[in-house]
């Protein structure tokens, strides 16, 4: 176990009292708590902005519902590790972190296995979208910090990271957009909130439950990332992937507009 | 489709193995002879008038010279050996070639046939265009031209039969399993050709048609190889793997016999232990018959 020697540590085990409060769930059969409908491609409105972190080569911030993600990109710079693969292609390094206060339960400062897992999923999703062959012997660092996690953190992290990469001027084949989905029986909840992601099933034997994240290169129509766990039959699974792809397409225009605004800001009109 | 799961077959005990007759086997440190009249060869060292083995293997004696041939070895090339190798680096006026020997081999720009004939001068343009002829990852067949003092090999491809290899399949076996023959290029009657590199790299490729051969050493076609040819190649590949797993010497006859004994089996089944044994038995029998 890695031990954090740099900070004062709290007690070995502590827990939020809210964990012990029984949560009541009463939502109408086909309506979700925030008024969106089940089984519809209904993503939360997205607010996105580029270039917030002035130190970074590129950065982006995304807010969707209460989920807030910030991402900054450093590089390309000379790689530290030198092996053969680095000579022809650039190396992409992704770090995915939850801020300690971002989730219901406080996260530690040390990167947990979950965060490592999500970092790898993020890397796998971004990798196909980048023209890494243009950056031989160099390294590009992407770090994503989730400020507040209200569900679909990884999906928004993917979108946010690709916006930040584009803002940094890294050559890309296409943007990478992410979308999450929660399957509950025959219904699916697109872009689920944290409560929807973690809720226990109403009945024990509900089949077809699971979570999914799809990353898409929208104009090439290629899936660059797929991460799904649960208990799904083939048919709902395929439908869920299709729904996620449609969800990604929905946020494409927002992401494009955000980038164009950033470009306009950087290049003021000649007369102004 | 059904996955073939099984319990591991009990391994053969050493007592079950056929007895090696008349062979002097040694382990490192074993004294081979105390007679000081012998000369020290590879795999041995002198210690107080005693000749001691430094590797595990078979003792071989040529007149007064004693050496030990190790049971496992990388390729020790000799002049005239046919090798199959992979370009690992393009340097000034030379290519580095990986040939399963201890050190990378060298192919000088002056030892290849460039398009336009044997007697052409090598110009500086040729030097710049080296990557167009051969680049990293390309496979070539070549002959050992000379051996450097440190054991590295210098190769040449100055014959039409050598050069860049096109479509085909590479099989890697132990170099000691390749039987030295007059020729290592074979157009097998079963419909494919084969290069048995002395370095243990075996290249199986569809038998070239006349017109392909004239295209010169550096152009290869990407036309799909017809299914029938690929079946032959796959079957040959598995047969060669089977032979090498059973430590049988590889040469045209053994390969052809194993190919024929494997013919009534499905290609993918050849590598299953029980079928492999059957094929090898049959091959062994036929080779013995032929040798009389």
């Amino acid at each position, binding site marked *: 176990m890695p031990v954090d020697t740099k900070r004062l540590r709290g007690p070995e085990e502590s827990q939020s009292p809210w964990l012990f409060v029984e949560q009541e769930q009463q939502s109408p059969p086909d309506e979700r708590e925030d008024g969106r409908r089940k089984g519809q491609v209904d993503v939360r409105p997205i607010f996105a902005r580029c270039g917030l972190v002035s130190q970074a080569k590129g950065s982006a911030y995304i807010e969707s519902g209460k989920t807030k993600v910030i991402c900054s990109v450093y590089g390309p710079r000379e790689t530290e590790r030198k092996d053969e693969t680095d000579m022809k292609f650039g190396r992409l390094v992704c770090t995915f972190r939850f801020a300690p206060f971002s989730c219901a339960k406080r996260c530690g400062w040390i990167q947990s296995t979950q965060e490592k897992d999500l970092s790898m999923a993020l890397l796998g999703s971004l990798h196909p979208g980048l023209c890494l062959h243009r950056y031989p012997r160099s390294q590009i660092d992407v770090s994503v910090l989730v400020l507040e996690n209200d569900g679909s953190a990884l999906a928004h992290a993917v979108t946010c990271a690709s916006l930040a990469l584009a803002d940094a001027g890294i050559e890309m084949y296409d943007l990478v957009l992410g979308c999450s989905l929660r399957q509950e029986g025959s219904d699916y909840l697109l872009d689920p909130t944290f409560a929807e992601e973690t809720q226990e099933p109403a009945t024990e034997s509900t089949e077809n439950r699971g979570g999914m994240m799809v990353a898409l290169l929208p104009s090439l129509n290629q899936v660059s990332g797929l991460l799904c766990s649960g*208990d799904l039959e083939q048919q709902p699974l395929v439908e869920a992937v299709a729904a996620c792809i449609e969800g990604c397409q929905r946020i494409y225009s927002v992401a494009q507009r955000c980038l164009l605004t950033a470009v306009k800001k950087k290049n003021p009109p000649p007369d102004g | 489709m059904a996955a073939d799961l*099984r319990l591991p077959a009990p391994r053969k005990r050493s007592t079950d193995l056929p007895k090696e007759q008349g062979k002097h086997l040694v382990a490192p440190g074993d004294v081979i002879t105390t007679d000081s009249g012998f000369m020290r060869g590879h795999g041995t060292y002198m210690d107080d008038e005693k000749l001691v083995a430094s590797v595990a293997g078979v003792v071989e004696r040529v007149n007064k010279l004693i050496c030990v041939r190790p049971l496992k070895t990388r390729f020790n090339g000799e002049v005239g050996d046919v090798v199959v190798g992979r370009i690992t680096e393009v340097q000034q006026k030379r290519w580095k070639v990986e040939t399963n020997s201890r050190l990378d081999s060298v192919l000088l720009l002056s030892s290849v046939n460039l398009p336009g004939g044997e007697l052409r001068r090598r110009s500086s343009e040729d030097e710049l265009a080296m990557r167009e002829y051969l680049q990293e990852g390309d496979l070539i067949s070549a002959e050992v031209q000379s051996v450097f003092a440190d054991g590295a090999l210098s190769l040449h491809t100055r014959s039409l039969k050598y050069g860049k290899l096109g479509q085909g399949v590479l099989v890697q076996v132990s170099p000691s399993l390749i039987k030295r023959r007059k020729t290592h290029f074979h157009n097998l009657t079963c419909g494919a050709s084969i290069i048995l590199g002395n370095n243990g790299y075996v290249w199986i490729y569809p038998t070239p048609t006349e017109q392909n051969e004239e295209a010169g050493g550096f152009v290869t076609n990407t036309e799909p190889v017809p299914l029938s040819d690929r079946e032959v190649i796959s079957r040959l590949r*598995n047969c060669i793997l089977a032979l090498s797993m059973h430590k049988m010497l590889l040469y045209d006859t053994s390969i052809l016999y194993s190919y024929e004994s494997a013919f009534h089996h499905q290609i993918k089944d050849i590598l299953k232990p029980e079928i492999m044994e059957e094929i090898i038995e049959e091959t062994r029998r036929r080779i013995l018959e032929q040798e009389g």
Partner: protein
Amino acid sequence: YLHVALLFWQQVILCHCTLDDLRVDGRSCEDYRYVEVETDVVSNTSGSARVKLGHTDILVGIKAEIGRPKLDRPNKGCLEFFVDCSANATPEFEGRGGEELGTEIANALYRVYDNERSVDLKSLCITPMEHCWILYTDVLLLQCDGNLFDAISLAIKAALLTPSKIPKVQMMEDEEGTTEIELSDDPFDCVRLNTENVPCIVTLCKIGQRHVVDATLQEKACSVASLLVSVTSKGTITCVRKIGGGSLDPESIYEMIETGKRVGKALHAPLQDILNKEESLGKSREKVGFIG
């Protein structure tokens, strides 16, 4: 030392090979190499298994120990995974090289197994909030020849399926209110895990226009992306994950899920059969272990 770097022309022939459902080693796109399974190979474990798939060689040991349940799952036991990619397997794992792959595999295993649907975690709980069984699953890669995930999942399932030596325990409470754990004296009085729903992983590699299962190292080198699908014996899919640096078009993802489900579902019965056979042979079977 096997070179995985393939030259372009070899990639071409491998791609063509998938067109006609004939791979280089003669298998069709949905064929596995034969698999050797042996369980109970390490006596100190609660369950262990060794799986050989081609040259891929996996050893899994499961140790059951008593610990505290996790805070967010007070009435469930848990599984812990550790994957060791030692430099024994291939020199690429030397230093920190194996670490990344190790974490990647371990993380995938958490997703596949550490949930209520795969393993009955509730049965691993002894007293809620206080004591539960933690199954430490250690995966050792002895040799790598492609398709690690599938081989590992077969080994884990085999290790879980063997009569796991998880002893029965009882909680005793004395007058002062302190609890004691009492272990059953009878060594044969064991809990057997319900492993009906433990999934198997199928990795599908996209090569050219098609996808293949059980890709060898060479085939893997030709593919840009693969899809990992874990399937239970009932045919439900518990985990899907894209691995590798490339992307896939939606249509081929749907096809790959379909194939993965079909192939994965068909893996369970032969595995169960072979384990039943092994158990029925009991002590009469000659143990093979690690030699050979």
